[in-house]
Structure formats: C-alpha cells, structure tokens
C-alpha cells in the first residue's frame, strides 16, 4: 500500500468517527423507540450553524462549544419527544415518517431563511496544521474531531452500561411491556433517550463544522449518510454505528481520491445495498 493510499485511509477513518457519532444518535433513538428520525441531518446542520455562530460571536472553539451545544440539543430533543413525537410512538412507520419529514422541511428552510444558502466556514487558527508521522500527514482538525467524537461516544457507552437511567433505557428497548410492568416511567425515559440522541447530533454537528462548511444543502445528504451508516453497522447497535461510520468514511475518502469526489456517495449506497441484501440486520446488529 502506498503512502498516499494510507494517508487517504487515515483521513477517512478520522472523518468516519465523526460520521459515526452522528449516526450513533440515530441508532440510539431507533434502537430504543423504533422511531426513525428523518430530520437527523437537518438537526446536524443546525448544530453546525450553532458552532459557527458561537465561534463568530464569542470566539468559542467548536471543541469547547460542543459542550453547550450538546446540552442545548439534549433539551431540544427532550422537548421534541415530549410534545411532538410522543403521540406517534408505536404508530405506523409512514405516519412517523411524514411527521419527521414535516419537521425536517421546517428546519432546513428555517436555516435557509435565517442564514441564506451560502456555506459558512469556521476558520480556526490551526485549520491547516497537520501532524507528520513517518510518511503520514494528518490534519490536526480531523484528529481533534475524531478524538472528541470517540470521547462523546465512550461517555454514552458508559452511561448506558453503568448508570441506573442507562440501564432503565436499555430495559425499555429490550422489553417495553416488562419495563412498564416493573414501574419504569417510559415516557420520561423515551424523552431522555431522544435527548441523548440529539446530544450526539449536537456534538457531531459542532465537530463536523470544523471539517466541512455549514450550509443548508448538506442536511438531506447527512440524513441519508446517517441512515446508510446505521444500516451498515446495524440499527440499534452502538458499536455498529461507529464501525459503519469508519467504513463509510474510508470508502468515501478512497472513492473521492481515486475516482471522483462527486461519486463518493455512490459507493456508500452500493455498500448499503450489498449489506442490506447479504446481512440485513447490519454488520453488528443482533436481529432484525
């Protein structure tokens, strides 16, 4: 393998981890509530704009802005679930779909109305720095973004594994009736879950803002990207989301470099079709 290919792959892995964090939010929401969040990319773009605004107005670095943005998104998610989405739990898929498509339309056009169609870059002082390790040149922003993405994902893993609330949410996912029977407040837990899913989105969006320029046009592409990743990794599997993210990140980077940047997502979709046919539960999914 040549040094260039290795460089491309490493970049892909790092970008893929940020993708993975975004997809993790989708996976958590679907895994627990069986609600398919079709407004996922739109919300990611909102987080990117939030990071952009905080940087422009308060000179807050996206890596730090990540915390308040993720917290705010937790709140947004909690309220969204409590008000808008809760009545749709357990209803037909197409009904949830229409609701969230409506929400996505409102969000993306709201962003368009406020910020206009132009891309908004964040120019960090170290935007063009890179680390040289042997033959590898790695962008500093991508390394920082990937490390932060891993940290957020790890925090979420630990939360689900070791806290009482996390365990309770897992119980809801495993057996809803059972969870309700033992007295868990399912509505509350669902709202927390949606909040956590959106906190991932908030964090991922802040990180994404450092490696891509925020623009309303990205929303739908990100929604599809998140879905592709989650299906490849396995809907509802947290580890799967990260693995899927890395896989898609690498495939996009390789296709973008060796074939054509505009064709990169074609390979992601081809990968998605192959996985759906050969292993519909995803690479790390437990069951369908």
């Amino acid at each position, binding site marked *: 393998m040549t040094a260039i290919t290795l460089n491309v792959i490493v970049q892909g892995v790092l970008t893929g981890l940020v993708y993975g964090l975004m997809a993790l939010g989708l996976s958590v929401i679907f895994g627990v509530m069986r609600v*398919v969040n079709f407004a996922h990319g739109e919300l990611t773009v909102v987080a990117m704009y939030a990071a952009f605004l905080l940087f422009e107005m308060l000179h807050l670095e996206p890596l730090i802005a990540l915390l308040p943005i993720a917290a705010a998104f937790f709140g947004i998610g909690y309220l969204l679930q409590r008000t*808008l989405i809760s*009545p749709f739990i357990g*209803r*037909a*898929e*197409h*009904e949830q*779909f*229409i*609701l969230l*498509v*409506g*929400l*996505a*339309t*409102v969000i*993306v*056009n*709201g*962003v*368009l*109305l406020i910020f206009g*169609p132009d891309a908004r870059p964040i120019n960090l002082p170290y935007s063009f720095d890179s680390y040289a390790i042997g033959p590898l040149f790695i962008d500093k922003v991508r390394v920082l973004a990937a490390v932060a993405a891993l940290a957020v994902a790890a925090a979420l893993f630990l939360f689900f594994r070791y806290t009482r609330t996390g365990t309770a949410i897992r119980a809801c996912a495993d057996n809803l009736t059972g969870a309700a029977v033992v007295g868990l407040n399912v509505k509350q837990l669902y709202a927390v879950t949606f909040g956590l899913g959106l906190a991932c989105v908030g964090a991922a969006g802040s990180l994404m803002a450092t490696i891509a320029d925020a623009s309303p046009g990205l929303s*739908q592409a990100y929604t*599809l990207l998140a*879905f*592709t990743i989650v*299906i490849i990794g396995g*809907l509802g599997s947290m580890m799967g989301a990260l693995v899927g993210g890395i896989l898609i990140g690498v495939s996009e980077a390789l296709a973008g470099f060796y074939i*054509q940047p*505009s*064709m990169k*997502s*074609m390979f992601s*979709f*081809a990968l*998605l*079709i192959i996985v*759906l*046919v050969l292993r*519909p539960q995803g690479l790390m999914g437990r069951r*369908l």
Partner: protein
Amino acid sequence: MTNIWYHTNWRGKAICLLLLLAFVAAPIVADRYLLSVLILVFYFAYLGHAWNLLMGFAGQLSLGHALYLGLGAYTATALWTLFGVGPWIGVFIAIPVAAAAGMLVGWLGWRFAIEGVYFALLTIAFAEFTRIGFDHLGITGASAGLFLSVSSEGADKWWNLGGGPLLYYYISLILAVAATVLVAGLRQSSLGYRWLAVREDPEAAQAVGINIFRARMIAMLISSSMTAVGGVFYGFYYRNLFPSQVFDIGRSIELILAPIIGGLGTIFGPVVGAIILTPLGEGLTGLMQSLGINAPGAKLIFYGIMLMIIISLRPDGVWPWLARQMGLNGSRK
C-alpha cells in the same frame, strides 16, 4: 369499478360526475396559470395512485419512486433527442426499463426478507445510486442536464408530446382519471383482495395459499410502470431533466404526500390529497408574492407545518373523514 360505482349513492355519483365535468370544461374559463396548477394536481393524483398501489394496497413503503419517475423521463426524452423516437413509442420502452428496475428492487428486497424501514431504505439507496450514476452519464448530459428542443422539426406537435398547455392539461386529466378507474378496478379484483390480505397479515395470507412474493411483485410491476408513464409526462412537460432534480429524494417524498394526506389505501385518497396540497403550495407562493415577501424558505416552512398538523389530526387521511362528513358511503372505499 362497476361494483363500486353501483354501491355509491346518488350524491357520490353526482359529485363525481360534476367534478369530472368541471375539470373537462375548466379550460373554457381558466387562464394559463390556473391550468398549470390543475396540471400539477392531476400529475400528483396520478403518481399518488401509482405509489398508493404499492404502499396503500400491498403495504410496502417505497421512498424511492423517483427512480422509476426518472428512468421513465430519461428513457423517453433520450430516445427523442438522440434517436428521434417520439414519446408515444418511447413510453413503451420507458415502461419496461422502469419496471425492470422495480422488479430488481422488489426481488432483492422481498427475496431476502427486507421489510418495513429496511425496505424503504433499500428503495432510497437505489434511487440515490442511480441519481449519482446519471450525474456522470455523458450521453444524457450528465449533471448539466438533458434539454428538449422546442424549435426542432415537429417539436410542438401533439404526436411528439409538444404544444400548448391544453395538450398537457387533457393528457394529465386523462392519466389521472384512467389511474383512478384502474385502481378502482384492481381494488375489486381478486388481486386487490390478495394485496389487502398480504398487507394486513402476511403470515395469514400465506397460510390461505397466497403467494406473498408474487402479489408484491405484481404491485411493484404496476406501480413502477405507472410511475414511468408519469416520468415521460414530466420530461416532456418540463422539457429539461437534471439528475439532481428528477432522481432526488425530494421527488420521492413529494409524490407520496398526496396519497398519505388524502388517505392511504383508498381509491380517492390520492386525488383528494392532490387537490388539497397542490393549490395550498401554489396559493402560498401567490400570497407571498402579493405581500411582497421574498423569503425563499417560508413557503416550505408552512408546508412542513401543515404536514405535521394533518398527520397529527387525521392520520388516516382526509378522504375517509371527508366522505363521512359528506354522507357518502364511499367512506369504505
């Protein structure tokens, strides 16, 4: 159809006939703008019927119907611009092309037991894959688009599907009416009942000897073929095609809104949905213009809010409720 017609009360029959008469006679009083709105109403009613066959009757959620729309549009327009084959012949090539794609998606999905959300994502993946493919397909102009000449020999003649708004008006009206009649007929056929059985309970349907796979494949065959015809109309009506527009997931979504808002699995749902949604969007554009507001996203924001309200209040669609309100026994349809 005869059956449903027979069971409709006189009010239902009267409303149906009056509406049809009004649409046939509309060009006498309507101006170009109103005609263009009505063309869109019929176009979305027609495509809504096509999609509703698969989702409303056979119970399979496709979010990638833009694939068949785009393949139909591209096949017919490319045949015309590149080889001079007129659309009335081209449509018979466009149909098998789109149907083959539909069969492939259906076969992959249902042979490997991919259902629900997963099937929907498979359909999106195929549509997106094809969109990017066409973005790089030189022969049809790649991402720069494919344009139909308006000045070439015979381009404005009806046999080449060119001409004034009246032509498109009546073609779209005929398409919408024909689709309604076809769907009503299918609904009453043994195939229609098999679809409903498969939709309601696949296992039970299989137990009574229905071949689920075959029933779904037939639904996909008819649905994708009908959508391809809509695509041919789209191509020759707009006279320009861009992969990023015709294969876009936005196309897939806009064509499923009318049947969902109108009422899934009903015969008049797609029509009612199209009659509600299209003027709503157009009316908003007009309102914004007359108020002098230049806000590109505002119309869609309102549209999105309307969607959320309708799906929250009338999840079964507007038509079943409307039919009850109007005292039509068509509510069971």
